[in-house]
């Protein structure tokens, strides 16, 4: 019942099996989407906090942010996941927390990809033209106000393509969470494999992940169009619906940006 030929022969019955198991699979989809959404949100917050912290004048803040970023970039997602799942419960009081699997997944994904994102935020803030900073002093805007009203809106438009790639990386990385007992899409599909055969189950899983990734691409493309429009560098979202389906990748992948 397996192999490429089996895949086509058994297509009808397999779709029926899949239909019968749909409730569990949808639960898996829900877990994957939740992990990617909350993980992505946490990563976004971490990216901004530690990205901006690396640009402030105070040296101590910069150094702490730098150490945080290098630590979470350098120690590998899977290690962080296992550390939260297996080591954290064994630590003495006041630690020794046994977190829920979803919390472990979201934390590890958010911390790891947030550290990469902090580099993106730092880089984008750095590549806002110097004249804009000079304009801040010329208009005697306070540094904080200038940061949030002038620099970040421009940096935001620059960083969205990289953040989009990172978010897709996070979604892909989330497929490892069943190792800490979080039953995601991959886990549920692995469960139906016995009945449907490898080819059908895994092609379904890959296509499902691919579609979720495209949802991320469309959201981020929309945000990019909006961000550019808001700083006067592009058409309104309603005038450029075609760009929503622009595939990711390109320049950011070429630079090795998510690394």
């Amino acid at each position, binding site marked *: 019942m397996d192999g490429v030929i089996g895949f086509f022969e058994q297509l009808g019955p397999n779709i029926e099996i899949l239909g019968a198991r749909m409730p569990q699979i949808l639960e898996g989809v829900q877990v994957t989407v939740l992990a990617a959404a909350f993980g992505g949100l946490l990563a976004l917050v971490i990216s901004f906090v530690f990205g901006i912290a690396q640009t402030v004048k105070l040296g101590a803040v910069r150094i702490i942010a730098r150490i945080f970023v290098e630590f979470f970039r350098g120690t590998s997602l899977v290690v962080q996941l296992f550390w939260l799942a297996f080591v954290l419960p064994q630590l003495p009081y006041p630690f020794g927390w046994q977190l829920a699997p979803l919390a472990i997944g979201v934390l590890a994904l958010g911390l790891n990809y947030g550290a990469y994102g902090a580099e993106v935020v730092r880089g984008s803030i750095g590549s806002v033209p110097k004249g804009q900073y000079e304009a801040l002093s010329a208009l005697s805007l306070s540094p904080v106000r200038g940061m949030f009203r002038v620099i970040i809106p421009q940096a935001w438009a620059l960083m969205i393509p990289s953040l989009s790639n990172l978010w897709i990386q996070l979604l892909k*990385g989330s497929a490892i969470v069943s190792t800490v007992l979080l039953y995601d899409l991959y886990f549920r599909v692995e469960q139906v494999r016995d009945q449907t055969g490898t080819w059908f189950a895994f092609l379904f899983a890959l296509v499902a992940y691919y579609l979720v990734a495209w949802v991320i691409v469309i959201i981020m493309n929309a945000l990019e169009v909006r961000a550019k429009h808001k700083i006067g560098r592009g058409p309104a979202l309603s005038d450029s619906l075609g760009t929503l389906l622009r595939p990711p990748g390109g320049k950011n992948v070429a630079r090795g940006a998510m690394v």
Partner: protein
Amino acid sequence: MNESWWSWDHAAAVLPMLLEGFFKYTLVATVLGTLIAVVLGLIVAMTRRVAPGFISTPVTWVVEFIRMTPLVVQLVFANLVLSPYIDSTLAIGIWVLGIHYTTYMAEVYRAGIDSVPKGQWEAATALSLPLLRTWRAVVIPQAIRSTLPALGNYAISMFKETPFLVVIYIPEMVRVAQTYGGDTFRYTESITLAGLIFLVASYPTSVLIRRLEKRLA
């Protein structure tokens, strides 16, 4: 529970095992996987550039599909399908890693090739260099220079993704750490040390690559 949370005895016991997993599997997978990605990536990038549409379009689709789907799922899928024919799980794991990163490297090379000035192509035509020679002697040497930092970044990235190989039970470092924890009910030393080894190995490398990036820029 008077046991202290950190035991140097456990740390000393697990460290040699971790290092063995590191050198025998983690490092081997990274090096060979990178090699595959570097070679196949160039082939894919060139195919997309020179092949007619009915070949290059499907290649582009497949590349995008592989790049946008999880390595973990690809690893398990490939292992289930190929294990009847290929004895070594490690070989399957390395090929999947290599092919996954091929899709990134192809994009790196594409940008590198695009960055070669049009005049260079025209000059090659003017000198009536054959196509193969144009690529080998003119385009690739210039394209490759700008791709080096990104290549290094992806090698580090792959290094840190080798623990995904746990899903096909390859005894690389993190799997060793997990197994040790399961056997002794002490995860603290093994997992923490595994993380530190990653940090110690990847941080200096990434600093070097950043320096290379600045020099080539």
